């Protein structure tokens, strides 16, 4: 029985990947999560220069719906600093996908070129953060910009390039098509959904940035739908990585059946013992495979399309 999967030319020991921005700010926490048995980790998104992100509150749980909302806004130390942490991860054989962002082609290029001498497993282009004014979603909702950025970066690194899509568009297929034409190696969907929470006593939005992005269990059906649509259209052209609301082992199968070759987990790992959570999900995946007679998890990718 095998949990192994492949995304493009990247072999993973299992289909579980840590999503960007959750437990991803330091080499030490990324290594900790990798050693807990996950297939690969994605770093917090890094950009050209250090930034503090949006004012607090910038993230809190929404327990009633098993989700979270955040408006961290790409706080990061800048790629020059973070490079040292990436190096430690690679030296310790951690499969490291580096999420990068920029305000335009030049900034993206600066970050990618500044890191591409390292044997990075893949770059994930964050074209989908809803919590900034100049970067992220603003770029990722325009197919022409997406294509231009991917085309430009594709020539500058040997590492695979993944493009992370936002669900906050009318037609995700149009953006995906642009990314594929630009030459990316995999599509990752979805980032958080535009959201807001207002306190009815003080009558203020709670987040310091007012607006934020919803993650966790409530967004899973949205992610499943997006992966299903993407697979239907591009399944034969490009591998997909499903993300959004995975909280239980069943969710992993749901994404794989929709068409994902691998999945990313974020919010659900923001718990006291992420190690236990990962072990629990993996054990139950194996049990289910045994019971259902699934020899190889990769065999059921896209299995819901029939």
């Amino acid at each position, binding site marked *: 029985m095998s949990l192994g999967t492949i995304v493009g030319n990247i072999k993973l020991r299992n289909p579980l990947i840590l999503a960007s921005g959750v437990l991803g700010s330091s080499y*030490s926490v990324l290594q900790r999560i990798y050693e807990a048995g996950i297939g690969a980790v994605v770093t917090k998104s890094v950009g050209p220069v250090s*930034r503090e992100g949006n004012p607090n509150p910038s993230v*809190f749980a929404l327990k009633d719906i098993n989700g979270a909302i955040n408006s*961290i806004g790409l706080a990061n130390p800048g790629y020059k*600093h973070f490079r040292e942490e990436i190096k430690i991860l690679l030296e310790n054989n951690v499969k490291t996908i580096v999420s990068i962002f920029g305000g335009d082609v030049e900034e993206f290029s600066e970050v990618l070129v500044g890191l591409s001498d390292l044997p990075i497993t893949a770059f994930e282009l964050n074209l989908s953060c809803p919590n900034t004014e100049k970067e992220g979603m603003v770029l990722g909702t325009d197919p022409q910009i997406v294509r231009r950025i991917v085309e430009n970066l594709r020539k500058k690194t040997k590492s695979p390039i993944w493009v992370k899509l936002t669900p906050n568009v009318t037609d995700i297929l149009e953006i995906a098509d642009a990314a594929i034409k630009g030459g990316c190696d995999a599509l990752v969907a979805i980032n958080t959904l535009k959201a807001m929470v207002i306190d009815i006593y*003080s009558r203020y939005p*709670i987040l310091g940035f007012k607006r934020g992005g919803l993650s966790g269990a409530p967004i899973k059906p949205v992610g499943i739908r997006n992966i299903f649509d993407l697979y239907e259209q591009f399944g034969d052209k490009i591998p997909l990585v499903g993300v959004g609301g995975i909280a239980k082992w069943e969710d992993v199968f749901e994404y794989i059946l929709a068409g994902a070759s691998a999945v990313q987990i974020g919010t659900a790992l923001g718990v006291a013992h992420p190690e236990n959570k990962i072990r629990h999900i993996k054990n139950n995946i194996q049990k289910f495979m045994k019971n259902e007679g699934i020899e190889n998890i990769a065999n059921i990718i896209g299995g819901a399309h029939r």
Partner: protein
Amino acid sequence: MSRKITSFDSQPIMGKIIRIEDECEDTKNFFVEMPEKIEGVKAGQFVMLWIPVVDEYPIGVAGFKDEILELGIAKMGVGTEALFNKQIGERVGIRGFYGKPFKPLENVNHLLLGGGFGMTPLKLLINTLKSRNRGDKIHVFEGARTKNKLMYLDFLQNLHDKGEIKFHVCTDDGSWGYKGFPTVALEEVLQEDSQQSVIYVAGPERMMKVVFEIGKKYQNVKDMQMSLADRYMRCGFGLCSACTVDPTGWRICVDGPVFNKEQLEQITDFGEYIRLATGEKKRI
């Protein structure tokens, strides 16, 4: 109007400020009434305090009784200043209780050492130890730059006078207690009393590191528990990883803020580096 809180560890719950006390220079005690029954808190745990439109930041819990939360707050910058400007009756948001607490052992001497806002979790710890009432000795060591900076001076002196604790107080300038550092009295107690002891510390990290090195020299120190609360936090519940320490990848907000001796030994960042809001590491 009161309402039932289903999950306190979620979006901020609005509590009402019902009392404000001047504690010492630039430090006040705020008593916040929570709208409905919530589960108990342990010494060393903290809340995330939201001042609408201004900021949200972590604050240790000094007490919690009859749904009234006691917070001791030192004025630092914009966020704490905004709280100082609040009046009785105004509301602030609270979420928590977060983090791993102190875990007092039994049949040992309890040696509590603190400075600055580190005294707030120690106040709750003292009350916890007193209510256990097992006859263990409790020593409290407090140090500050000058008399006006000493937190809970009356509270602690009063307990000392009643014989419930032994209070050792000092200042850098000699304006109150003995002149010098709290570690001097700590070492005296460790040398004079061979009974097994546990040291609990909360305060500036450089100071905690010094205490840690001292504590390691004494055979009768059974454990040391220190609160690494001088660190930047965003979520407070283990999601964002803004608060991680190297090389263990532990998050101060859920794996700490209180760590024991064995854990502190493994944290090479302890007393050396913090992470800024950007994630950059900076020497303390």
